[in-house]
Each structure stands twice: as C-alpha cells, then as structure tokens.
C-alpha cells in the first residue's frame, strides 16, 4: 500500500492553510493602501502608520495592554507551572478533582461567564476596578494554558535525573531549581509567550473587569471597529501581527541554537 500523501491530502492541506492565511494577508496588504476608502486600492503608502503615531488614545491603550500582558503572563506562568507540578508530581492529594476541574475549565468556558463572575467578585469586595483587576482576571484565565504545556513537558522527561539528585542528598527545592527547572525551561518559556499573547488578545474578560483609565488595546480596537472599518485599524493590526511573528521567529531561532549547542559533542566529555 502507498504510504505517501495523495493528491486529496495535499489539496485539503493547501485549502486549509489558504483559508487560514488569506484574510490575514489581505489585511496586511490593505494596511498599506493609500486610499481612505478601505476597499478601493489607491497605491502603496504608509500614511496610516504615520497617522497611528498621532493617535494618543490608541497608543495609551497599547501601553496598558503591554503592561497587563507582562504582569499577568508572568503571574500565570508561575502559578500554572506550580499547578502542573502539583498535578504530575504530588500524586493523589486531597481535593485533586476540584483542583484539576478549576484549572482546565477556564480553557473552554465561555468568556462571558468568567468575565461576569470576576466582575461580581470585585464589586462584592469593593475593589476599585482598573489595571490590577484586569491582571487578576487574565492570570486566572491563562494559567490553565500554562499548566497544559508544562504538564506535557513534565510527563515527557526522564525522572531518574531528579531521583538521582534526591538520592544524593540534594534538598527538594534545590533539586527543582537545578535539575527540574532547566529541563522544563523551554516549555515554561513557550507557555509564557502564549500567556502573553492571550492576555494581549483578550477583549471580553477585560471589558468586564476594566475600570476608568484602563482601556486595553482590544477594547479600544473593538469600539473603533463597531463604528466601521478604518484604515488605521488595518495598520495597528498589522503591527500586532508583525510583533507576534517576530517573537515567534526569535523563539524558534533561539531553540534551534540551543538544540544545536546540546547536540554538539562536548570536547572532553565521555
């Protein structure tokens, strides 16, 4: 029996990828359109990028979003990694079922439910809403994604390294820091990046938990989009795509370098 892909296989992949990428490519092209009418092609131009730099409200929103994403991605990575360790290494502790339910449910739960419930908590606790309430909400939403990625990595590596360190009298905390953490570092880094982009992306939960003076970029873009398509929006979207693409390329290059380094035979090593 033939093992390679058939024409049907190749066509379905090609169509699938075209469907996924065409809209994004079109958006990027239109962001360089000189015409004010989004759909009418008026030649190449970067005028919308220049106008974007004058849009103080948009820039302020971008700055808030970046700060929210930095803080919440970091908090979610710490908490999510701990949760992954708990699930993989702690065996059957009390309340494990509730624990895993609370971690994995936010991954699929409709965002309106999570957003509403957190807002009601903040109102009941009489907290002023703003930057920190969005950070808390995003951390809660995102930590599950971190747990999934780190958990897969923890299950995948050789436990005997950890056990050897422990048998040789290395304290558990030190074992974690010197053996486990370096081994799961790529997964932790990848999950931080995913957490960052998820936080940067979120509209619904931020809308519920935001307060005066904390308009994030998606909230800003959403309110503009509701009023209709504008060339500036194409431009800011293109910038966001470029930032994410650059980060991903950098990450993959770094991991390739790392792989190449570890694959090289170390002189003097047995």
């Amino acid at each position, binding site marked *: *029996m033939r093992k390679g892909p058939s024409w049907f296989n190749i066509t379905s992949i090609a169509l*699938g990828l075209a469907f996924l990428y065409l809209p994004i490519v079109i958006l990027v092209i239109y962001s360089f359109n000189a015409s004010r009418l989004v759909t009418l092609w008026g030649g190449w131009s970067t005028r919308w990028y220049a106008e974007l730099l004058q849009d103080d409200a948009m820039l302020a929103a971008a700055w808030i979003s970046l700060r929210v994403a930095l803080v919440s991605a970091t908090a979610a990575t710490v908490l999510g990694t701990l949760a992954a360790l708990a699930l993989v290494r702690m065996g059957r502790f009390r309340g494990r079922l509730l624990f895993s339910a609370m971690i994995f449910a936010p991954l699929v739960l409709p965002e309106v439910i999570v957003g509403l419930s957190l807002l009601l908590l903040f109102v009941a606790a009489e907290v002023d809403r703003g930057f920190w309430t969005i950070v808390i909400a995003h951390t809660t939403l995102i930590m599950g994604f971190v747990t999934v990625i780190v958990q897969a990595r923890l299950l995948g590596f050789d436990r005997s390294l*950890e056990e050897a360190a422990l048998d040789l009298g290395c304290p558990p905390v030190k074992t974690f820091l010197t053996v486990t953490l370096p081994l799961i570092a790529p997964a932790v880094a990848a999950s931080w990046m995913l957490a960052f982009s998820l936080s940067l992306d979120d509209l619904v939960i931020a809308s519920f938990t935001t307060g005066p003076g904390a308009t994030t970029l998606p909230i800003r873009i959403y309110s503009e989009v509701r009023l209709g398509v504008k060339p500036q929006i194409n431009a800011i979207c293109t910038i*966001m795509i470029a930032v994410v693409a650059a980060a991903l390329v950098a990450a993959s290059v770094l991991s390739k370098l790392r792989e190449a380094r570890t694959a090289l035979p170390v002189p003097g090593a047995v």
Partner: protein
Amino acid sequence: MSEKTSIAANRSWAARLVVLAPYAWLIAFFLVPFLIVLKLSLSQTALAQPPYTPLFDLSAGWQGLKDFLSGLKLDTYALLLSDSLYLTSYLRSLEIAAASTLMLLLLGFPVAYGLARMPRRLQSVLVVLVILPFWTSFLIRIYAWINILQREGLLNDTLIALGIVQEPLTWLATDTAIYIGIVYSYLPFMVLPIYATLEKMDESLLEAAADLGCPRWKAFWLVTVPLALPGVVAGALLCFIPIVGEFVIPDLLGGSGSVMIGQTLWIEFFGNRDWPVASAVAVMLLLLLIVPLMIYQHMQAREPESNR
C-alpha cells in the same frame, strides 16, 4: 503512576506551597466568583449602585443567614422561562454551535488526515503553520473578515469580476458571516486533536486490512475513523463549548435580528444593567454546558495517565 514519589514523600513547606498557591488562587478567583454569580441570580433587581440587593452579611450571624435564605428569590429564573427571548437565544446558540462544530469537523478532518500522511519532516512545519494564526489576535482575525465580507469588500469584487453575480451580495450581518467567522477562528482547535490521534496511528493496521482484501474506503471507515474518535470528540468539545457562549463573532459579523446567548448576557449586563438577570443567564448557560464540560474534564484528567 508511582504513588510514593520522592518529592511527594517529603511534604516540606515547599511541596505544600506547590499545591496551595495555585489552589488558593483558583478558589479565590474562580470558585468564589461563581458562588457570587449563583447568589446574585437568586436576588432581585434593585435601582441601586451596585444594582442588586446586598450579599450575605457575615457579621449578622444566624439572623443574617436566615435573612439571606429568605431573601433568595427565583424571580429571575421565572423571567428567563416566561420570556421567549431567552429561550430562542439559548436554542439559537446551541443550533449555531452544533452546526459550526459539524462544519469544523468536515473541514478539519481532511486537513488533519492530510497532515498525518505527510512526510515526517514536513509534518512539523505544517503543524506550526496551522497553529500560527492562533497566536495572532482573535479580534484581528475577525476584523480581517469584515474587510472581506463588507458590501464593497473583496469577496463581492471578486464574485462580480468573475461574472458569478451581477449585484454585490450582502454577506455581513448574516448567519453565513457568523459561520465563516466561527469556522475560521476555531479551525486549529479541531485540526490539532484529530491530528494528534491520527499521527500516533499504526500504519500496519491499514496494510493488514488491505492484505485481507478490505477496500480502502472500508478500511478508512472501519480502522482509521474509530481510532481517530478520541481526537474527534476532544476537538468537537474544544469547539462546541466556547462557541455556545461566543460573543465577539456574532456581535461583529452577525445581524441584529436574533442574538446568541453570550450577546444576551452582554446586553443584560452592559445595556440594561440588570445584573441578577445577567447572572441567571450565566447560570443557565453553565447548566446547559455541564454535560459537555464533564466529558471534557474527564478526558483532560485521564490524559496524563494514558501517556505514561
């Protein structure tokens, strides 16, 4: 799973912290908020700030608990059941979620199947290509479709240029646009779990079937499809559950005629400022999703053990 792992055996403060820190966070910011939603859905709308009757006052002791219990009302749920607006909204959400999950499956399965049959080296590159759009903003991807689907958009221009239609068609603010947006946004969530199961499949099973004279389409149906089933179920749940509560896609691409339940919740909350009704809508939505959520949870919890 080895029960007595060395770290687990040594339940030091650090080991406790590993469980307690995320646990405490999730109880404070995931479980407790839910209980508040539940409580609020049982209280009455009040013209106050915040717009509902107050919560349980701990300092009041027993009397407070009695007042709390007697203060619970089922009014909001009665409203939800009596006003057909909510019922149609729920049904419409289920209908859209079911139909789009089916479309995702029909589109996603051939892509996942194709991926699994590609040469190994190419596979990893193609999988990354499928994941990549997921990293760009969700809002941007929906917005990109507005560019294409609007009346003077690229789709109509292309159709007219090709001579397929004479007049521009209305795409935006229709159900078609909602389906396009949903299928577009959720496609990676369907492709990846199916690919993961197909990729692990043992090719020799198909060879055995062929050797025994089984036609290819029949071998596909009797061998490949059953083996891919866990991936199909996982993908379907990963799509269906969030789609039911979807807000952004129907709001930006759909019409104003009939709304999905996520939009209803949003309107009750931000538009009408009726927090108790919004909470009741959320509770009902959760009840609606409880069975698919439990199946999903069951699969997630078993995942690590099946990998061992």
